[in-house]
């Protein structure tokens, strides 16, 4: 059996904000098909790590490799889907339809405009269908609920058929039911579309049924391994008894 390909490698990464340590000596590999939950208390460096992986922040020490290539040489960005923290905190007056959001994502990754409008329409419809949103292409995105807006952003990422999706606390400000539906969608995309997912979350209790790996961060990588071993890990118990807590929900 062929081992899964390494999609992301974080190697000896340290990061400081104006001299203040945010991340120290992080080593982490993410493989094809993983659904990795990155958890940790506020200020533990989760968002910083994600921003370093997608090249928005440059670490003072260490390197990142995407699909085997050093980040600084990586050009194949359509393979990466990214949804940042508070992504749905739009300006409520912003005049953009659902279809325009998706098509902007599609065309931004193309070297030239796709001449075939029918093909473009098919791609948009397929992406919307995949996230369970049909017939809302002409609606203004700000007129949708928070949960629907999240799905539109996933559709924008999926329209380029990425291999990995990175999400930073995507359900902030979304109600519980919408959160569960959203995580079910991520689980479906991971299992059925073989999409690798990296998810920063405070809602481990909701998402844990879908993830297969967990990375626990508190400036250092406290734990990185299988989800099933996570709860029994003594390192994690130590971490939790040190005054940190993870928001969890009972089912």
């Amino acid at each position: 059996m062929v081992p899964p390909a390494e999609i992301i490698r974080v190697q000896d990464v340290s990061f400081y904000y104006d001299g203040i340590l945010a991340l120290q000596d992080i080593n982490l590999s993410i493989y094809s098909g993983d659904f990795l939950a990155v958890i940790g208390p506020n200020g533990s460096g989760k968002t910083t790590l994600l921003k370093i992986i997608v090249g928005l922040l440059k670490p003072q020490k260490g390197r990142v490799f995407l699909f085997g290539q050093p980040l600084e040489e990586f050009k194949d960005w359509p393979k990466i889907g990214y949804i940042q923290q508070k992504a749905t905190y739009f300006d409520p007056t912003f005049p953009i339809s659902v279809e325009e959001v998706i098509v902007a994502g599609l065309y931004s990754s193309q070297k030239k405009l796709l001449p075939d409008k029918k093909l473009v329409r098919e791609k948009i419809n397929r992406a919307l269908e995949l996230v369970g949103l049909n017939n809302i292409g002409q609606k203004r995105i700000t007129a949708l609920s928070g949960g629907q807006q999240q799905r539109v952003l996933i559709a924008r990422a999926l329209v380029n058929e990425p291999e990995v999706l990175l999400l930073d606390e995507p359900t902030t400000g979304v109600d519980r039911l919408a959160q569960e539906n959203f995580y079910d969608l991520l689980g479906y995309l991971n299992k059925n579309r073989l999409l690798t997912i990296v998810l920063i979350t405070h809602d481990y209790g909701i998402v844990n049924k879908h993830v297969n790996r967990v990375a626990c961060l508190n400036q250092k990588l406290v734990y990185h391994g299988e989800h099933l071993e996570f709860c029994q890990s003594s390192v994690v118990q130590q971490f939790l008894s040190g005054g940190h807590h993870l928001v969890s929900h009972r089912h």
Partner: protein
Amino acid sequence: MIYSIFSSGFFWRAILAGGFLALACGLLGVFLVLRRDAMIAHGLSHVAFAGVAIGLLLNLLPLIVSLIICLLGSFFILKLKERAKLPGDTAIAILSSAGMALGVLLTSFKSGFGAELMTYLFGDVLAIAPTEVWLSVVLAFLVVILMVANYYPLVFMTFDREAALVSGVKVKRLEELLVVLTSITVVLGIRIVGLLLVSALTVIPAASALQLARNFKTTLILSSLFSLFSIISGIGIAYALDISASAAIVFISILIFLICLALKKLGLIKNF
């Protein structure tokens, strides 16, 4: 009267230059307003004042000198934001003050061009020269073409800058392009409405369109139409009533804004 308007060459020159400028302002303004960069045109118009003063002092074409000074100024604003980590409005305020101060200083070195300077401050579209018309048409056409060619990346960047960066959109290059296009548009607007009112052309039609439009394309179309209507009707009214064209253009665009705002508030029109 009507016949004399339509038969005069300078009227058609004004309409031609104004029409192309309206398109450039209508398109560009939407991006500037949505990116919270509306004041950049105002700041650059003050920088252009220094260019006009240099041009008049050295007997060079003021529009060309202003264009060069504005382009330099726009890159200075970008660098101030990036290197000194200054907020955009602070960088714009610093540069616009410097531009205005330089312009005032230069005008004190030579007397006698006060009247000509006034036409640049307040605009005199009906006195526009044929060379300036063609310069306006070519540059405005360039602005429109560059915006259309970069339409989707510009929309993506305006809506979600961080996601656009990760998608491989050359955000920094596009931001530079927007500032360059703003510089060109500001300089083009100097002859039509003048330095002091040029930012109105980039901001007010876009703000009006945002009251009514539901999607990005409609916003751009409405903004361009409002801009076009304001400039052409403003020139016509100014010519017919012998009043300042720049004031007429700005007042018409404000009137359109108030109508759009009222239509939205009263719910008399559904977004389209």
